[in-house]
């Protein structure tokens, strides 16, 4: 086996969109404890990648308006080079991760992060993140809010859309 392949470190940045409000208010609002409304992004090759209402975006790590992440999880290392990764992201961005495919509950930033994490490292992201939509939807309040929430697209600004249509 050749061990001389370069390895790149892959991290998961986790942000709490509610800034702590979910932790305090979720028991009242939803009837169950949610520690946060999680938005995640993959950080690799010195850049942060995430999926939002605009499609796949990237920026410098911690460079969105969300500021620095609440938690960083080391996902491991990958041999995948940046070039291949960008190819991969472009393909994703044209298909399953176009901007208009964003769905707050079923196909959101965490879906993307999970998929990319598996691609890069073979590991998934922690399940408390991917379980969030179903947790919320299983509460009456979540059900009531669902139509409204469905129209929300989270797109933390500060990123650059990859494979974006127009780069003027």
């Amino acid at each position, binding site marked *: 086996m050749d061990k001389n392949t370069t390895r790149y470190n892959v991290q998961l940045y986790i942000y709490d969109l509610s*800034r702590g409000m979910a932790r305090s208010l979720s028991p009242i609002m939803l009837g169950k404890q949610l520690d946060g409304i999680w938005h995640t992004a993959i950080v690799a090759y010195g850049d942060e990648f995430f999926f939002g209402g605009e499609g796949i975006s990237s920026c410098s790590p911690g460079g969105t308006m969300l500021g620095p992440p609440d938690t960083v999880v080391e996902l491991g*290392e990958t041999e995948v080079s940046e070039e291949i990764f960008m190819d991969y992201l472009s393909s994703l961005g044209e298909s399953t991760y176009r901007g*208009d495919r964003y769905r707050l509950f079923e196909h959101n930033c965490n879906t993307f992060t999970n998929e990319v994490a598996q691609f890069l490292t*073979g590991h998934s992201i922690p399940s408390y993140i991917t379980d969030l939509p179903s947790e919320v939807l299983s509460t009456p309040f979540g059900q009531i809010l669902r139509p409204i929430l469905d129209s929300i697209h989270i797109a933390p600004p500060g990123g650059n859309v990859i494979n974006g249509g127009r780069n003027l």
Partner: protein
Amino acid sequence: MTRKLTPDASCSIGGVKMADQGAADPGNNNNNKAEASEGTIIKVTVKTPKDKEEIAIAEDASVTQFKEEISRRFKAKQDQLVLIFAGKILKDGDSLSQHGIKDGLTVHLVIKTAHKAGEGASPTASSSTSTQAGTSSTSSPGTEPSPTAGSTGSAPPPTQTPNILTGFGDLSSLSGLGMGSANFMELQQQMQRQLMSNPEMLSQIMENPLVQNMMSNPDLMRQMIMANPQMQQLMERNPEISHMLNNPELMRQTMELARNPAMMQEMMRNQDRALSNLESIPGGYNALRRMYTDIQEPMFSAAREQFGSNPFSALGGNSESGVQPSRTENREPLPNPWGPPNSSNPPESGGSTTGSTSTTGGTNPSVSNPLGINPGSLGNGMFNSPGMQSLLQQISDNPQLMQNMLSAPYMRSMMQSLSQNPELASQVLMNNPLFAGNPQLQDQFRAQLPVFLQQMQNPEALSVMTNPRAMQALMQIQQGLQTLQTEAPGLMPSLMPGGIPGMPTGGIPGMPTGGIPGMPTGGIPGMPTGGIPGIPTGAGMPTENPASSPSSAGTNTAQQQLMQQMLQMFAGGGGGGAGGGATVHAYTGITSFTPA
């Protein structure tokens, strides 16, 4: 030639390897250098970004063989294929088993194509990544937030996020920049933005006569905008903005734009194009950046504040809780909400404590009594549950929390709609665990609902809620009552007639939950005691009058029982919130709530 460096798990025999030419692997129909063994066929899922297929291959096959199979299936050349498993790139010289690829596992595939949109060639990839950081802020006008919520079809042509502030002439395209902090406000801004970008929804809103009315009055718009102190500051600093606002033509044009989403998008696109052209001019990037930081940011924070429950309030970002300053300015000196006789309780800054509400029954909110609290109608029941206690504490500790929440325009409109739809409101409430175990409370609450919802509408009420000192005062009151209850339990029942005016509960309609208006309390009538003179600081809401509880004269047995229960809840609440004390929990339904 494949070489196995590690023992193949599937090859359990002592490694008899025959250079068999594939006879042993029925599934492996490639020419092969397969090392023979049992040659079980495994099904491996090969996943590309766009597609996935299941490929049957021999367990001990080599990567080359695998690629051959794949190239057939995906119609791509072998050298375009890049296989990745568990973060490792599968090289031709390896074997599948080497990487631990077994039946049912997924291998990722990237097909390199030279002419893929923008990619395939490394230079483009790396250059785009390297320029990202540099242009991230300025190129966001160039980003395409695709409108959605199912409105446009697939692959929408690039469109801009119509940001309502588009009216402001040249600055409209800056709306793409810096959209604000990530918190609930961000969420609802996004939501609003989506609303805006969905032409149908937008036109629906436009059709709303109220909106139309407002938009057709340029003076009104201008006034609204200028009334915001932040905006005023902004205008001082940047006179161009005030020129812009004062230009009726421009305002009119803006409103036309707002009415016509397509036109708006068109204009935004033009603006963005112009801006990005600007970027290419030497020094242009800096100019843009300056423009953004000097103008757009404060303007957007100002505008957002301004527009309160206006559906167009999705105006760009407030980068932090700039909410606070404007709120502080706008707020009148915080009156003592449960104002009454106990004016020795000026909870807040500039607190002019105020007129007591002497009226009973539905008191109208007034400056001095922003919550419109009818002292007599206040109950404290729910409010003193352990949950509420902890919430209160959290809120006091984190005023930002309340502010953020309450200032969210979305919240307001939600409360509005809830107040118009009491059915929904009661439904939401009843589902809330705090109410779960207590049908009595529910009923009480339901009766109070309309009043309560009214209170929530009152921005003064809201601002009181966001004041940490107010919160603290409330807690003091509660604690005082609890102490009293434990010290002199006999006192309470005798004071039953009349509610406790201004009990914290009533004082905080819908408290903390914010999102669920109607959290406990909106003035549960007949609550424990009215005149308790000498209630320790902060509490002291001597009764107004016995008949103040709207629901009754307050002296019937049912009420008494209820009050007893409430009292017990205090004690229970004291235990939960303050840590220690009586442990009576009258309502088991509340146990689910623990101080977060």
